[in-house]
């Protein structure tokens, strides 16, 4: 009787073993690799008053860099959303020779050192480069302008869109579009009303990730950006400049802004996606 009562009071036993161990290791890893550096970043700011902090992050040159970064990142992610979706579509829905190669190529921006990408793009699009020479007569300048920044950002972040949309598209049964066609829908209607809504969460998440990645991009961008104050300076560069001047507090302050924006965006994406997925799995829409 006594033991039964004791058993009854103890916490219900989990069927899946190893919860304590696996969560413990995970938390340790997260602390060491993620939280510790972030804490030290915030720690750097401990000695700064709020007014000083505000003065650093609202310096006109820094504010200009926010605008350049956000603008270019937004443009880059919009372009990536479009082409990433197309790319995923092509990779999933069609069979063609060289498909595996193209698939592998999609990950190249992840594997390539970003500085290599930056230098390559800068050479290609400078006024004497292959592409630059072709575009110059048309009056289009890419290198050392805002367009170049967006281009470099798009290059490094396209895998985010492709790799988040691709698996969702693969799981989407063909019968869904066949059903739409048997109901008389045109191809465009079937895509817009049946396929796209299913891809929507993945597409938004992928684009969001690409945007956040672009906000922090450094290596690929600085070589092609030209880095003219107030015009083509990105926020990451401002942090780098502060560091070179041994202004650790200034660097940390600006970095904390980037961090806060990225974190807020990622959190918002996660919450939104969770709501959408609940509906597909039977929650009240």
């Amino acid at each position, binding site marked *: 009787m006594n033991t039964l009562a004791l058993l009854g009071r103890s916490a219900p036993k989990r069927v899946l073993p190893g919860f304590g161990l696996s969560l413990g290791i995970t938390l340790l890893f997260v602390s060491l690799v993620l939280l510790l550096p972030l804490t030290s970043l915030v720690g750097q700011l401990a000695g700064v008053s709020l007014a000083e902090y505000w003065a650093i992050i609202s310096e006109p040159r820094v504010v200009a860099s926010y605008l350049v970064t956000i603008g270019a990142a937004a443009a880059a992610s919009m372009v990536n959303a479009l082409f990433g979706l197309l790319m995923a579509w092509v990779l999933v829905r069609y069979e063609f020779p060289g498909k595996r190669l193209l698939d592998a190529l999609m990950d190249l921006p992840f594997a390539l050192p970003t500085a290599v990408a930056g230098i390559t793009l800068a050479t290609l699009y400078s006024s004497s480069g292959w592409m630059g020479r072709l575009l110059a007569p048309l009056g289009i300048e890419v290198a050392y302008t805002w367009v170049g920044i967006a281009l470099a950002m798009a290059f490094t972040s396209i895998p985010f869109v492709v790799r988040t949309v691709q698996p969702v598209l693969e799981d989407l*049964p063909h*019968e*869904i579009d*066949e*059903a*739409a*066609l*048997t*109901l*008389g*829908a*045109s191809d465009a*209607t079937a895509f817009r*009303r*049946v396929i796209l*809504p*299913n891809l929507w969460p993945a597409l938004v998440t992928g684009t969001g990730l690409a945007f956040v990645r672009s906000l922090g991009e450094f290596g690929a961008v600085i070589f092609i950006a030209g880095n003219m104050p107030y015009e083509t300076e990105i926020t990451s560069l401002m942090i780098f400049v502060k560091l070179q001047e041994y202004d650790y507090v200034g660097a940390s302050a600006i970095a904390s802004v980037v961090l806060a924006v990225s974190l807020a965006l990622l959190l918002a994406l996660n919450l939104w996606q969770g709501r959408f997925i609940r*509906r*597909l*799995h*039977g929650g009240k*829409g």
Partner: protein
Amino acid sequence: MSIRLKNIAKTFGDNSALAPLDLDIGDGELVGLLGPSGSGKTTLLRIIAGLEQADRAPAGSIHFGDREVTNVHVRDRRIGFVFQHYALFRHMSVFDNVAFGLTAMPRRTRPSNGEIRARVHRLLEMVRLEAFADRYPAQLSGGQQQRVSLARALALQPDVLLLDEPFGALDAKVRQDLRRWLRHLHDELNFTSVFVTHDQEEALELSDRVVVMSNGRIEQIDEPDTLYRKPANRFVFEFLGDVNRLEGEVRDGELTCGAARLTVDLDEGREELLLRPHELRLIEAPTAHAHLPVCVTAVSPVGAEVRVELEADWLAEPWLATVRHADFERLAIRRGQHLFVEPRRWRRFSDERAARSTGRAVASS
């Protein structure tokens, strides 16, 4: 609307999925395409729907009534298609799913919102799901989802309703209900329907006529009872129910196989006889015409008849016999018991395509 297929063939790469075949389906008929997997039945259904193109080489044609639809796109064929796994749009409510065909129409021909609402509610009433209009597909059971998919397919009042293994993903009880209900709906609305199934019971119970297929060919087209009573060939016979085999040497009007002997009126030589489980009688002593000693290895007294599994040295694979409960009790059948079999009837298919012959046990006591 009648469906007329002429010379329809389909090859995938080097594999022939459908040999050139003709098929006529009458107006208002409910026809089942029955066959094992890989027999080409689903391919045939998808060709009728326009989801698959028939081969161009032997130029075939498809007519719905007087309208030739061979090269008409699936969206213009005016068909309703029901998929095995429902293929509902899971991001839309039940109402929006059923309304999809109507709301996807070009603006000129689209009915007004009020009329769409009225029509969808009528359809949902018909499939008894009025209360679920605002739910999402994931909130419904399999049977309910399949009913939604039926309502969706019927929303545009198609000429032809095509169903691909419509009940295949459902459990037995729901399947029974839906089957009866579909038959009812068909009789009420009187559209022409074709459905695919690999379940012979379903095909025989539901269809006006059954098309039995194997290896991309049509083996037989007949009404269910004709099909069962007069199978055109061995494949049809074996596919439509359980079969017991007796193989042996015929000499002087008697077939022998080890200890087994059976009087038959066949020419001398090696023969194989096929027997249905309900055509076997279990008796305690051999008769003059049948000496088939067996041993009972399993008994399953569930249902209208008792299923008895029989084994013997002379049998390559066990036999199955179904006996009435009265006989079961009279003989007190239990596992390990030794009995004799007297076939009431047997069949023989001398060759795949050749004529069949049947025999009847000479004596019956």
